[in-house]
Each structure stands twice: as C-alpha cells, then as structure tokens.
C-alpha cells in the first residue's frame, strides 16, 4: 500500500518536472525510453527529497532510472 502511494507521488512529480503524462510502465527507463530530458534530473531529485523529506545520495539516484526503481529507492530510505 505504502509503495503504491509512493509511486503515485513520484508519478505526480514526474508530471510536474518532466511533463510525463498518460500511462507508462513503471519499469520503463525514464531517460532512454520515456524521453525525460537530462536537465529534468536535478528537479526530479530535489522534488523527491522535498516531497518525502529525505536526503538521497546522488550515486543511488543516478542508478534509479525508472519509476519502480525510484519507488524502491524511497522505500529503502524510509
């Protein structure tokens, strides 16, 4: 349940910072498959830190390239 809510919140952030609308697979690579521009990465990271009140290591964030990976990252830090 918690991860579903986390996923919804991450998708909302992606809608805002990367204009990622509509349906897309949680496992799809944000940058390579979904066309998120590289300049959106920092906004995504900062927005996630603010949204979840977490400090996210840059190396871990760099490895998390899909919604499901970002959900796992956030859940792992809680």
């Amino acid at each position: 349940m918690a991860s579903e809510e986390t996923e919804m919140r991450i998708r909302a952030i992606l809608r805002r910072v990367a204009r990622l609308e509509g349906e897309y697979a949680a496992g799809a690579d944000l940058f390579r498959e979904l066309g998120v521009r590289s300049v959106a990465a920092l906004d995504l990271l900062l927005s996630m830190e603010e949204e979840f009140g977490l400090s996210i290591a840059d190396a871990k964030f760099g490895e998390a390239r899909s919604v499901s990976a970002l959900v796992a990252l956030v859940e792992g830090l809680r």
Partner: protein
Amino acid sequence: MSMPVAVVSARPIDAELAAEIEKQSAWISPTVTELRVDEDGRTVSFRVEGSDAEGARAKVARFVGDMVERHRVLPRKVVLRRELAGRTFATDAYGELLRRGWVVELGRGRVSLRGPALAVVHAIDEDAARIARRMGALEEAHPALVPASLLARCGYFGAFPHCASFVTHLAEDYDSIEEFRRRNTDSARLVQPAPEAVAPLDSCLLPAPCYPVFAAREGTVLPGALTITCAGRCSRFESRNLAGIERLWEFNVRELVFLGSEGVCAAGRVRAFEAVLGQLERWKLDGSIESANDPFFPAARAPRAYWQRSGDRKLELRLPVGPGPSGGEPRSLACASFNLHGRFFSTAFSITGAAGAPVSSGCVGWGLERWMLACFAQHGFDPAAWPSWLAERVFA
C-alpha cells in the same frame, strides 16, 4: 569612481562554487568588478563603477541566486594523477613565449604562433590524430563558420549564450555600404556601422569541432558504430576572463567523436583515456584526470552541471601550467576532455541505428594551444629538458 557593495547569499557557497561564481561574474556587467565570495561562504563583495549601485546590487543578487539555487555539491573526483618527482615549473612560460616572439598577441584572446610554439601545436595534433586513426577513426573536415541554426539545434544558445561568437556582414544596401566605406576610408580603426546597416545574425563561429559531425549526418541510419576525427578552430567568448593562452577566444582543437550504442561510446572513451595516459608518458608531462562540468550560463547551470557531474559524463585532463600560490598545488588548465553525450545530439539530428532508435555519442577533445603552454611550463625552454623525440621536432 567605484564603491564597495555586498550581497548575502541565501545558501552557503562551497569553495568550488565560489571559484565558479567569481569567474562567471564577468557576465554581470562591465560596471561590476572585483567580485569575491568572502570567507564566511555567504557574503559576495564587489565594486560598482558609476552611480547605479542599487541596480548593480539587484543584478548581482539575481546572478548569485541563479548560481546557488539548486546547486548540488558534487565533489570533484580525481580519477588519476601523474606527477614526476622533483618537477619544477616555469613561473611565467607565457611571458617567455611572448619575449621570444614564438607567440604574438593580435588582440585579447587571439594569438599568432610561430617557431617552437607552433611546432608543439603541430606535434600534439599529429599525436592525437594518430591515436584517433589507431582507433579506426575516419578523418573529416568542417567549416569553422556555421549557420546559427546549427548551434540552436545543439541547444547552444540555451546553455552557452554568453560564449557564442556571431558573424555578420553589412546588409545588401548600396547606400549604407557606401556610407560605411566613406566613414572608414583612411581610418586606422573601425568606425562602427549603424545598427540598421548590419544584416541579421545568421552565422556563428564553431565553439567545438564535433557539432558539424552530427549535423552532417542528419536523418541518417548508421549501419554500425562510427569513429570520426576532425580538427578545427573553435571560438568561445570569455569576456574579461580571456587571458593569454590560458583562455583564448579562438583556439584549435583535435577531436575524436564516437557514434553508436551507449556501450560503444563508453568503451571508446575508456580507450581514448588509456591512449592519453600513454601520451602523458611519452610527453613526460604531469597531469590529472578529474570530473568536471562545462561553464554553463548561470541561469542554465544547475541542472546541466548536475547531469554531467553526477554521471561522470565529463572528465578533464588538467595539466599544470605554473607553480601554485605559496608553493601549493600547481596551477593547472583543462587541456583535454572526455565527454559522453547520451542521445542528445542524435535526437537533435535524427541519427538512428539500424533498429530505428537514436544512437549515443561521445567525444574527446585536445586543446592544442593549452597543451603547448603546459609543455613549456613543465619542460622549460632548454631543449635538453624535453623528451628527446619531441625536442628534435620542436627545436630543429
């Protein structure tokens, strides 16, 4: 008449960002000088020429805000360091090159080369081209003067508007050309034409040799990976940071470009990286390879610098060019860079692989004049101190 002014940053400024802020302050205004980040890491002090101190303070505050807001501290990684024991550095290699007449300044950021200085530039270009050929690179030549739209499509004006060098000409109007001719006849300096006598900007000098490599392949499907080399003159305006050979407006670069899968580009960069280490050995040069980011315009900086730094997408070879202050770390310059672009350029120019998806790209660039300066700074001016194979070429 100038007056001291200060603004206080809303966020702390680390030492590396402070150095970038001080360098980038050249773009604020000619009336804002001597900008420094104070030791408290928050106060930015500067002097204002003229009477509009409040206007200048507001502009500096916007500039500092753009630099610090969303800035993510990512420490510079030193991937490799090569230091010869007991190395001493020429204290003013550039001054000596000028005194010997091997370098002649034609204007701020523009130099003529001759004698041993030119011979070193040729030697490094040939050495880098040889590395490229060994990696199977095909040689190409591209113009230094390109359509402005080419740079626009590379995102250049969104990331580096301050560095762009535009080329224009007088508008095709007989009377205004004659007016310009008349006013400039017998004048030893350029008498500026009226703004309306100049054609709209539509051409630029290339800031990096690789852009036309992508543009010249627009809409193509690559059957396999491709490695290309080209050399060219590059122009990047750097305002009052232009200084000697260290920071030229126009300079020469030898480039190696990879096109293919992400893995092919990453592997190509590693091979180039190893080849450059071999170069340092042959040229007997100290140097270090470090993570870096490009000097993006302040308002565009944070997300782009983060992307480059967080993924080690840009690495620089820094060569010492003089002793450090008070016997500290030697002063160094970026003399080569190793870059991964992802699919940025192939998406901009619709370059795809056989499967129909945009390919990845990467490049390695050697800055020829800076490399030459590093040679004189590290080996000095006595041919006996140079590697013998190089001394034979340079001082013949």
